[in-house]
């Protein structure tokens, strides 16, 4: 309980520190309820490098913080080796681990949910109730921005910043121009899953504006639909070997207020591996609408 209060006080930003400070026995208690995507993977990564935020912040030749690196990847650690040659999966019983067989990761702070105008709440519920059919990411469809989450790898040059993602539905990229151009006025630019992004520096924070997002995608799991008027702003600030990531989704047509989520990303030494091909073998075999967790 003490650990839970600590994480509440520290907030998402403090997850890594909380992981550092939490005594080992806090890792071991209450495992069954400790499982909490989507942020758990970030907590696992933070727990691997608890002093990441206190490292020096590197800068590029043009003076901006250098965001290049692998910052997040979907973690394994849910299958553990036992004995010499046997393996056990722990999902549903335990939590992701910082290494295979290692200590469980601390519970993540749950994200706030987007708040809808009253007249759209029934639609959200209906979509959520039929999620196994309506959520296209369960059937290899792209999650799109912002559901895809923070960048998993960043490649930064002075002219553009590229965000790379290896998602369970496919591999995606976003090339974000940094040359001061405005949002595209090209009438032939169709709405898309990752939209049209432009970037700029606000002090030491990279700010990315995203528009032209298709209304085919959801903001998050659970039927959180949006319109194609959705405007996403991402803010990324490097602190040592971490990035404070904040995403604001503004869709005044349906949302009662902008939806904001935050993550702390931790620099990882691993390469970002290409995601395995997505094959929808489940379609047609669902006999009811029981929810299928599909958070990122």
């Amino acid at each position, binding site marked *: 309980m003490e650990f839970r209060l600590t994480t509440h006080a520290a907030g998402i930003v403090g997850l890594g520190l909380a992981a550092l400070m939490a005594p080992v026995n806090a890792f071991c208690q209450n495992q069954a309820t400790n499982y909490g995507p989507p942020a758990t993977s970030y907590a696992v990564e933070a727990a691997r490098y608890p002093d990441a935020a206190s490292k020096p912040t590197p800068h590029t030749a043009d003076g901006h913080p250098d965001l290049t690196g692998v910052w997040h990847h979907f973690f394994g650690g849910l299958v553990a080796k036992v004995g010499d040659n046997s393996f*056990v999966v722990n999902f549903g019983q335990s939590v992701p681990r910082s290494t295979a067989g290692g200590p469980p990761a601390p519970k993540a702070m749950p994200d706030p949910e987007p708040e809808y105008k009253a007249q759209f709440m029934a639609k959200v519920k209906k979509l959520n109730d039929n999620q196994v059919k309506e959520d296209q990411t369960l059937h290899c469809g792209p999650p799109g921005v912002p559901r895809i989450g923070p960048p998993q790898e960043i490649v930064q040059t002075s002219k553009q910043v590229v965000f790379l993602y290896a998602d369970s539905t496919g591999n995606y990229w976003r090339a974000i121009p940094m040359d001061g151009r405005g949002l595209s006025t090209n009438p032939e630019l169709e709405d898309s899953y990752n939209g049209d992004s432009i970037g700029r520096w606000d002090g030491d924070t990279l700010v990315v504006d995203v528009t032209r997002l298709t209304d085919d995608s959801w903001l998050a799991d659970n039927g959180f639909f949006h319109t194609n008027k959705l405007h996403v702003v991402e803010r990324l600030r490097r602190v040592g070997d971490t990035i404070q990531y904040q995403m604001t989704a503004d869709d005044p047509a349906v949302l009662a207020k902008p939806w904001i989520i935050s993550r702390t990303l931790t620099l990882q030494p691993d390469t970002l591996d290409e995601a395995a091909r997505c094959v929808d073998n489940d379609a047609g075999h669902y006999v009811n609408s029981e929810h299928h967790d599909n958070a990122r």
Partner: protein
Amino acid sequence: MRTTVRTKKRLALAAVVALASALPLVAHHAVSAEFDSGKVVTLKGVVSKVDWVNPHIFIYLDVKDENGKVTTWRLQSVPPMFMKGSGLTKEKLLDGTEATVTAYPAKDGTDAFGFVLKLAYPDGHFYNLGGGPAPAAPVPAQAPAK
């Protein structure tokens, strides 16, 4: 009628159907929307193919009946990312040894389609992919690692 035919088929495949008791339903997946967690099918066969694909790995198990007829079961498993870093690879699953495999059968009546719970090998090693608590202490090696 269809149930009878399917049951016969399963018997012919030397499948044993029993009530699930020990293995809790996996919470992460809506397994129950697709597979019947009230039944556990036991199969003996050789893994002939593994599709290392999202959103779920598929393990294909060749099961031979007493007349030598082979039926290939398609067994859904965990997402590839669950395996990352574990050391349990496609190659290990494809080692050619006959395994005793438990699975939840499909709810929609599709034959030879299930959710894999556990593969157990004659030398004692096993892959428990269907969930359930890990052993309290590491299981002692019962055979040399492959």
